[in-house]
C-alpha cells in the first residue's frame, strides 16, 4: 500500500511537473534570462528528480515486500492494522465509469519497466534546460514541459494499470501527450505532418487493442489484468495474441507497422524523441509481455512469429538507418532495429514457454528486458547528442555536416560512447544484452528440444548481420558528423559551441549508465530471474541465469579491455605532452587543391552496403549519363525512400482519398435530407424488428 502510494504520487508529480512552466515569464530577453534556463525547464528537472526518488523508493518497497509502516506504527492501533493487512502493492477503487475500476498494482514486471520510466524523464528534462536555452524563447515553448510531463506520467500509469479500461485510458493519454509534445520541434510544418501520420497509426493500433480487450472481457468476464484467469480456447487465445501483436507492435514499430516512426522521431524535439524512442515504444514490448503472461502460449508458432518479425524489423531498420541522410531519422530507424532485437528475444522466451524449456524462456526474457533498458539509455544519449548537433548547426543533414569534433569535442565523445554501445560492442551495455541473446539462440540450436532449427538459425544470422551493419551505420554517422571538415562551409561557419552543463550532465549520466550496465550485467541476473518467475507464473526451478550464461566474464573482459586501452591512451597523451602536435588541414587526401566537398559523404560511405541490399531497399539513383567527351554540368541524387511507406501505405491512403469523396453525395447540407435518413433508418429498423420477432 505504501509502495503504490509512493508510485502514484511520483506519477502525479510527473504529470504536474510541467505546470509551473505555464506561469513562467516568456518575456525574458537574452540579457536577463533566468539563471535556470528556459521557462520552467529547471523546475521540471527538479520535479522529475523528486518523482524519480519517490518512484524508486516505491519500486524498492514493492520489490522487497518490506513495509516500514509495520515497524513505525504501533500495531495495536486500528489504522496500523488496516495498513498492515494491506501490505500488497495494489490499489483497487471503484470509479464512475460503467466498466472496469481504478486498479493499479506493481509486480516485478511492472517494477522493471517503471525504473526507466522514472529515470529517462529526469535525463530528458535536464537536457531540456540547455536545449531550450539554445532554442530561444517563444510563447508556446511553455506548453512543451506540460506535455512532456504528461507523457512521462501516462507511461508510468500504463505500466501499473491492472485493468483493461484504465490501461486503455492511460494508453490513449500517452499517445496524445506524445503527439502534442512532438509538435515543438524546429520545423513546425513538417512536425505537424509527421504527427498526423503518427496519430492515424497509433489509433489504428489502439483499435486492435480495443478489439483485443473486448475478446478478453468476453472470455474472462472482467477487465482485470491478473494471471489465473479462465481456461482459454485456442482459437480465442490466438485471436487475442495476434491482435496484441498488431496493436502493441504498432507502438513498438515492428517492421511493416513502423511507417509513422522515422519522421515522427526525427521531427520531435530531441529530449521528446529520447523519451518516445527510449520508453514509449517499449510500452509495446511491455504490453506484449503482459498479454503473454495472461494468455498462455501453448503453440510454438507464436515464438517463431516473433523471431521472424524481430529479424525482419532488425535487418530492415538498420539497413534503412544506414541509408538515411538525416541524423535523427537514422537514429529513428535504428530504433526499429533495436525493437526488432527485443522481439527476437521475446520470440525465444515464448518458444521456451511453448516447448516447456525454462532455460530458453529465462535467457530470452532476460535478453529482451536487458535490451529494453539498454536501448532506452543509449538511444537517449544519441538523441541528446544529435539534438546538440542540431541546435549548434541548425541542420541534421549528415551530408552537409562534418568536422564538428573540433567544435563540440564533448558531444563527440559522448556520441561515440552511445554509438559503440548501440553497435553492440564491448565494454558497453549493448554488447551484454546482444550477447545474452546470441547465447540463447545458440543454446536452442545445440539442444535436443523440438525446435524448428531454420527459424532460429535465421534469427541468429539476422542478428549477426544486424550487428555488422550497425557498426557500419554508426561509424558512418560519427565520421560524417564529427570528423573531416564541414561539407557545407556555411554550416561550419554558423556552428555555435554548446556550453551547457545540464546537457552535458544528461548525456554523461546516460553514458555512465551504459558503461555500468555493460561492465556489471551479472548483478542484474537475480532481477531477471525474479521477473521471469513472475512472467511464467512458476518459480524458476532451473539453476539460474548465471549457470547458462557466464555474465561475470563480461565484467572481467570489460575491465581488462579498459585497462588495455589505457596503454595506447597514455602513449598518445604522453607524446602530445613531449612533442606538441603539428596543426594541419584535417582532410587532404593527396589532392593538390582539396575542397571539403570532395570528402566522402555519409551517403557514399553507406552506399556499398545499401547497394548490396538493394534487392529489398530499392534505393533511387539519379545519375548523369555521360554523352560527350567533355561532360556538361550535371547532378547526381541518391535517395532511400521507405518502400513500405511509399509503395504500400501511401497508395492505400491515396486510394481512400480518391474513393471516399463519393460518399459526399450523402452530405447535401439540407436538414430535410438528414431527417429523412433518420426516418428511413427508423422505419427499416421497425420492419426488421417486426420480422425478427416473428
Amino acid at each position, binding site marked *: 500500500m505504501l509502495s503504490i502510494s509512493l508510485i502514484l504520487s511520483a506519477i502525479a508529480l510527473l504529470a504536474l511537473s510541467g505546470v509551473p512552466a505555464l506561469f513562467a515569464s516568456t518575456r525574458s530577453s537574452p540579457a536577463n534570462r533566468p539563471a535556470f534556463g528556459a521557462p520552467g525547464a529547471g523546475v521540471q528537472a527538479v520535479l522529475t528528480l523528486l518523482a524519480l526518488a519517490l518512484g524508486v523508493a516505491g519500486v524498492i518497497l514493492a520489490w522487497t515486500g518490506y513495509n516500514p509502516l509495520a515497524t513505525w506504527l504501533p500495531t495495536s492501533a486500528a489504522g496500523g492494522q488496516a495498513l498492515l493487512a494491506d501490505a500488497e502493492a495494489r490499489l483497487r477503487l471503484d470509479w464512475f465509469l460503467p466498466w472496469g475500476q481504478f486498479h493499479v498494482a506493481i509486480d516485478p514486471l511492472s517494477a522493471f519497466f517503471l525504473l526507466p520510466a522514472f529515470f529517462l524523464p529526469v535525463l530528458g528534462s535536464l537536457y531540456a534546460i540547455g536545449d531550450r536555452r539554445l532554442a530561444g524563447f517563444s510563447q508556446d515553448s511553455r506548453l512543451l514541459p506540460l506535455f512532456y510531463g504528461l507523457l512521462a506520467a501516462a507511461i508510468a500509469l500504463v505500466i501499473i494499470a491492472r485493468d483493461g479500461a484504465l490501461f486503455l485510458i492511460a494508453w490513449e493519454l500517452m499517445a496524445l501527450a506524445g503527439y502534442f509534445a512532438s509538435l515543438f520541434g524546429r520545423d513546425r510544418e513538417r512536425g505537424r505532418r509527421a504527427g498526423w501520420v503518427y496519430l492515424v497509426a497509433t489509433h489504428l493500433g489502439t483499435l486492435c487493442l480495443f478489439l483485443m480487450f473486448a475478446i478478453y472481457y468476453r472470455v474472462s468476464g472482467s477487465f482485470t489484468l491478473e494471471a489465473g484467469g479462465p481456461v482459454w480456447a485456442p482459437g480465442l487465445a490466438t485471436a487475442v495474441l495476434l491482435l496484441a501483436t498488431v496493436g502493441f507492435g504498432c507502438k513498438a514499430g515492428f517492421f511493416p507497422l513502423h511507417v509513422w516512426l522515422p519522421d515522427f522521431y526525427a521531427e520531435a524535439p530531441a529530449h521528446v524523441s529520447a523519451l518516445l524512442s527510449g520508453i514509449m515504444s517499449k510500452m509495446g514490448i511491455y504490453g506484449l509481455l503482459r498479454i503473454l503472461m495472461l494468455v498462455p502460449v501453448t503453440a510454438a508458432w507464436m515464438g517463431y512469429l516473433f523471431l521472424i518479425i524481430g529479424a525482419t524489423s532488425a535487418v530492415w531498420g538498420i539497413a534503412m538507418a544506414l541509408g538515411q541522410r538525416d541524423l535523427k531519422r537514422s537514429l529513428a530507424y535504428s530504433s526499429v532495429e533495436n525493437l526488432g532485437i527485443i522481439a527476437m528475444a521475446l520470440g525465444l522466451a515464448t518458444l521456451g514457454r511453448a516447448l516447456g524449456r525454462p532455460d530458453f524462456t529465462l535467457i530470452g526474457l532476460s535478453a529482451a528486458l536487458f535490451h529494453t533498458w539498454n536501448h532506452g539509455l543509449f538511444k537517449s544519449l544519441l538523441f541528446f547528442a544529435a539534438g546538440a548537433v542540431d541546435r549548434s548547426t541548425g541542420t541534421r543533414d549528415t551530408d552537409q555536416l562534418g568536422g564538428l569534433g573540433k567544435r563540440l569535442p564533448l558531444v563527440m565523445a559522448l556520441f561515440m560512447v552511445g554509438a559503440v554501445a548501440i553497435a553492440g560492442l564491448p565494454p558497453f551495455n549493448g554488447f551484454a544484452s546482444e550477447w545474452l541473446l546470441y547465447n540463447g539462440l545458440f543454446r536452442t540450436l545445440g539442444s535436443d528440444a523440438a525446435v524448428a532449427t531454420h527459424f532460429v538459425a535465421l534469427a541468429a544470422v539476422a542478428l549477426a548481420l544486424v550487428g555488422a551493419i550497425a557498426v557500419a551505420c554508426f561509424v558512418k554517422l560519427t565520421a560524417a558528423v564529427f570528423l573531416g571538415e564541414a561539407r557545407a562551409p556555411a554550416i561550419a561557419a554558423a556552428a555555435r559551441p554548446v556550453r551547457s552543463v545540464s546537457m552535458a550532465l544528461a548525456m554523461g549520466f546516460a553514458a555512465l549508465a551504459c558503461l555500468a550496465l555493460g561492465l556489471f550485467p551479472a548483478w542484474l541476473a537475480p532481477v531477471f530471474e525474479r521477473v521471469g518467475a513472475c512472467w511464467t507464473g512458476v518459480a524458476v526451478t532451473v539453476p539460474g541465469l548465471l549457470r547458462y550464461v557466464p555474465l561475470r566474464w563480461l565484467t572481467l573482459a570489460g575491465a581488462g579491455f579498459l585497462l588495455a586501452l589505457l596503454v595506447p591512451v597514455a602513449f598518445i597523451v604522453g607524446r602530445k605532452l613531449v612533442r606538441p602536435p603539428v596543426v594541419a588541414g584535417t582532410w587532404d587526401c593527396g589532392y593538390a587543391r582539396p575542397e571539403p566537398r570532395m570528402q566522402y559523404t555519409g551517403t557514399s560511405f553507406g552506399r556499398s552496403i545499401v547497394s548490396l541490399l538493394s534487392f529489398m531497399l530499392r534505393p533511387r539513383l539519379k545519375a548523369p549519363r555521360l554523352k560527350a567527351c567533355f561532360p556538361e554540368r550535371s547532378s547526381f541524387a541518391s535517395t532511400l525512400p521507405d518502400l513500405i511507406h511509399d509503395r504500400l501505405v501511401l497508395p492505400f491512403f491515396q486510394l481512400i482519398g480518391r474513393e471516399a469523396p463519393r460518399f459526399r453525395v450523402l452530405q447535401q*447540407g439540407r436538414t430535410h435530407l438528414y431527417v429523412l435518413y433518420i426516418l428511413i433508418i427508423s422505419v427499416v429498423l421497425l420492419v426488421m424488428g417486426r420480422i425478427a420477432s416473428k
Partner: protein
Amino acid sequence: MPNLVNTILVIVLALNLFALGNSRLMSVIRIVSAQGVLLGLLPLVMHGHITIAALLAAGVGIILKAIIIPSMMLRALRDADIKREVEPLIGFLPSIILGALATGFSLLFVTLPGLADEAAVSLVIPTSFATVLVGFILLTTRYKAISQVVGYLVLENGIFIFGLLLVEALPLVVEMGVLLDLFVGIFVISIIVNHINAAFSSLDTRHLVSLKE
C-alpha cells in the same frame, strides 16, 4: 377509462392529418397547440386517479405547449412576416395521403412485445409512432424554418405519448426536465429563425445549404 383515452388518441391522429394538410402556418401552430392540450389531459384520464404530481405535470405541460410555445412561434411568425408555406416539397394532399399511410403502417405493424396488453394501451403505441412519423414527414417536406419547428413539436408529442406508458415509473423530475428541454429547444429555434430571416432575408431553410462545407 379506456374509451376516453382512445377517443383522445384518435383525435390526436386526426389532428396530425390536419397539420399535414394545412398551408396556413398560423392554423398549423394552433392545431399543434390543441394537440398539446389533449396530450396534457391524457395522463389525468389514463390511470383513472388523479395525483398531485400528475396534476402538476399536466398543468405545466398544457401551459407550455398550449400557451407559451405557440405564442413564441406566433410572435416569430409576425416578426418574419410570413403567413403560409408556399411551396412544400410534396403537395398538401399527397402529404395527407402519406400521413394516412404512415398511420396505417403504425397501426398494422407497431406493437411492443412484452407489454401488458391492456385495452387502454392498445392504441397508445401505434398513435405514438404515427405521430413521430408525421413529425418526420413535416420535417422533411417543409422548407420554412417555422414549419420545421412545428415538425419537431409533433415529433416530441409522439415521444410524449410513448412516455405515457412509463408515466407510473417516471418520476416527476424527469418529466419536468423533458418539458424544460423542449422549451429551451423551441426558445433557441425561435431565436435562430430570426437570425435566418436576417441573414438570408427569407425563412427558407434551403438557403442553409450555403453553409455546407
